[in-house]
């Protein structure tokens, strides 16, 4: 049912009046209950201290870049981890007097859990850690809080010093390692250089040039050799030809000349004589002999040719051209031999150069590798050296407590009044709840009860006119009863409030 605010208020007031006994009853019961709870609720004393963590002191700007301040991202969590650690907790147990009764390990664990529950460690702003501890004993709350702060500071400083010291040790070790590596590489380089003296800058180019030169020389010498050989062959042929010419020109020529002469004489005789003429016959025989002589010569020459060796006869040997040719041939022979020797020498040297070149390449690769290693190691080593110095400064800062200081911003004080829910809170809450609960319940009933409480709602919903809205008719007897009832209810409420007030006063004056 949709109701307007003023309708709700009006109906709610009507409902409160109708259910006045219930309202007052709930008020009294709630107040009484809260009074009892308030009396039974343990008093809690809370002590707190705040610690300022100053990591931006005077040294930092001076050491900018040289020292690395330890970064703490979540100081609150860090502090919780540190304080709730067993190491600090054991000391707190002792300081707080929990160990007087010699609790067992299990009991200690429980006490520690209790302490953890009652302690709150929060970060205020960026650099302030607030430690808050609640206890039912004011003195113990104070002592525990104080001890927590103190131990936390000690532990943090020690932890930080240890941390930077460990960092320094690590970097130092690394530096040492790299130093060793560097020395080793240098040694290797030195060995390589001494092993390959050739292996110096430009060696390779030199070898290549030399090889090229040798190559060129071999090629030109080969060319010369080939020429000399061709020349030798030509000379050989010429020498052989000269012998043949000589042989032909000498005997066969003489025979043919003689035959020619005889033939002409014969031809002349034949003009005058028959073939049977003795002169002619004689001539013919002479010619035949000469022809045989030519054939014999030819046969001999052929035989010589087949035998490969041309017999130089005396006439040939005496031939000046032949002699010159022979001389040139022998000269050429010598030349060929010399050239061959030169080529062999050049080839041998080329081979040497090649081997040398190979050696040079291997050495170069190794040298490059070692040089690279050396450079890398040197860079890292130099970097590490710088870092080690930074770490040393950081360590010194922490050792001298310069990098990260803790200051008690607000010291713990002995709590004089209990904290948390105080007795008067319960009393005030009781009065408030005593009023709100019944009103709330009635409001809920108003919202959820389907029964009609507003006359206008009927006419609008059922389209039936409201003939009359009859208010309650109070009879004199009812009024009298109401008067008495209201007086009693009023008395009950006033008495409840008065009782609560009285108990509060007694509680404040520490009577109860």
């Amino acid at each position, binding site marked *: 049912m949709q109701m307007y605010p003023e309708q709700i208020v009006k109906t709610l*007031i*009507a*409902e409160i*009046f*109708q259910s006045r006994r219930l309202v007052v009853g709930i008020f009294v019961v709630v107040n009484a209950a809260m009074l009892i709870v308030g009396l039974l609720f343990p008093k809690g004393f809370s002590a707190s201290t705040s610690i300022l963590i100053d990591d931006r002191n005077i040294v930092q700007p001076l050491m900018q870049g040289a020292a690395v301040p330890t970064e703490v991202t979540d100081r609150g969590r860090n502090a919780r981890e540190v304080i709730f650690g067993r190491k600090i907790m054991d000391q707190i147990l002792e300081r707080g007097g929990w160990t007087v009764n010699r609790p067992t390990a299990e009991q200690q664990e429980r006490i520690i859990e209790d302490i953890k529950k009652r302690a709150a460690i929060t970060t205020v702003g960026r650099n302030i850690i607030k430690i808050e501890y609640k206890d039912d004993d004011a003195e113990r709350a104070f002592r525990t809080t104080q001890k927590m702060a103190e131990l936390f500071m000690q532990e943090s400083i020690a932890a930080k010093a240890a941390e930077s010291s460990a960092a320094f040790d690590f970097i130092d070790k690394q530096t040492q390692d790299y130093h060793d590596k560097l020395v080793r590489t240098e040694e290797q380089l030195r060995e390589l250089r001494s092993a390959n003296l050739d292996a110096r800058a430009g060696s390779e180019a030199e070898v290549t040039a030399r090889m090229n030169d040798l190559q060129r020389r071999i090629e030109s010498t080969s060319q010369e050799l080939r020429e000399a050989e061709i020349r030798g062959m030509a000379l050989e042929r010429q020498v052989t030809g000269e012998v043949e010419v000589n042989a032909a020109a000498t005997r066969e020529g003489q025979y043919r000349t003689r035959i020619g002469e005889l033939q002409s004489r014969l031809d002349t005789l034949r003009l005058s004589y028959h073939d049977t003429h003795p002169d002619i016959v004689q001539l013919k025989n002479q010619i035949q002999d000469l022809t045989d002589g030519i054939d014999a010569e030819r046969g001999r020459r052929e035989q010589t040719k087949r035998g490969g060796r041309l017999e130089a006869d005396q006439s040939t040997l005496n031939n000046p051209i032949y002699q010159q040719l022979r001389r040139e041939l022998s000269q050429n022979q010598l030349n060929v031999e010399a050239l061959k020797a030169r080529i062999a020498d050049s080839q041998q040297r080329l081979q040497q150069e090649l081997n040398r070149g190979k050696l040079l390449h291997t050495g170069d690769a190794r040298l490059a590798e070692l040089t690279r290693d050396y450079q890398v190691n040197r860079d890292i080593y130099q970097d590490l050296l710088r870092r080690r110095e930074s770490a040393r400064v950081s360590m010194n800062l922490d050792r001298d407590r310069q990098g990260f200081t803790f200051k008690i911003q607000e010291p713990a004080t002995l709590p004089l009044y209990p904290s948390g829910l105080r007795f008067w809170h319960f009393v005030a809450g009781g009065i408030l709840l005593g009023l709100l609960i019944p009103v709330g319940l009635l409001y809920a009933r108003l919202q959820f*009860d*389907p*029964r*009609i*409480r507003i*006359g206008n709602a*009927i*006419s609008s*919903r*059922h389209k*039936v*006119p*409201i*003939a*009359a*809205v*009859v*208010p*309650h*008719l*109070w*009879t*004199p*007897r009812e*009024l009298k009863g*109401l*008067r008495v009832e*209201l007086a009693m209810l009023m008395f009950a409420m006033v008495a409840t409030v008065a009782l609560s007030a009285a108990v509060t006063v007694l509680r404040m004056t520490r009577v109860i």
Partner: protein
Amino acid sequence: MSKIEKALSRARAEHGNFLVPVPNTGTARTPVTGTAMVADRTGHPETIARMAVSESRLLSPGDLSQRGIIHHQYVGDPAVQVFRELRTKIVQQSQGRNGVILVTGVNHNSGSSFVAQNLGAAFAFDTGKTALVIDCNLKNPSMHRLLANAAVPGLTDYLENPDFDIAHIIHPVGIARYRVIPAGKRSEIPAEYFTSAKMRRLVDSVRLRYTERFIVLDGPPMSDIADIRILSELSDYVLIVVRYGRATNTQIENSVNAISDKKLLGIVFNDEPRIPRIH
């Protein structure tokens, strides 16, 4: 002697302690002008005058207040104003004639009897009108509480006995121009009575006899739907009483649907909480 006077005298003879003394004036329909208290406004001054004679002992406003009945002296009371307005509304609707008004509740304890009684009282405020409240809620009657003697004959007695006179069941209650017919003896099957022709005759006769008389039927709740249907047929107007915080929309809807739109005068939203001024 009129029937009413006869009834009254018999009643007195039977019970002796009857609240209202029996008048001894003239015969029926004989005007008694000498003791007339009301101006001749309705056209039936003689009837009203006769009633006035029989009401020599009226209840004080305090007594009425104690019984939960409004009195015109407490004109400042919001309840009095409301009933007067309701009466005016009905009078306007009836256009000068009298009428039969059935008052029924959506459910038990709706306060329909309270509304019926006070509606009757509001009619009786007007010196030119009279009111007769008939208790038709036979299962849970309430009108007899207004009477000094609760055992007087009522509606069921009249309906059961063929020779019973109407005058025997109409009783004054100590309010001027106000009469009631109590339920009478309890009956097991009330629906039987309302269906009888005698019931219709009763309603017709009390209505037709005195034109200034408004008849209020204090009916059973709507849960007795059979009775309500019969009674609504006998009446001119129907008022449905819904008590604050007692009825749901469904109940109201069912009740409204059961009554013919022509007769349904409206809904009386009863017993709205009111914080009284206490000194």
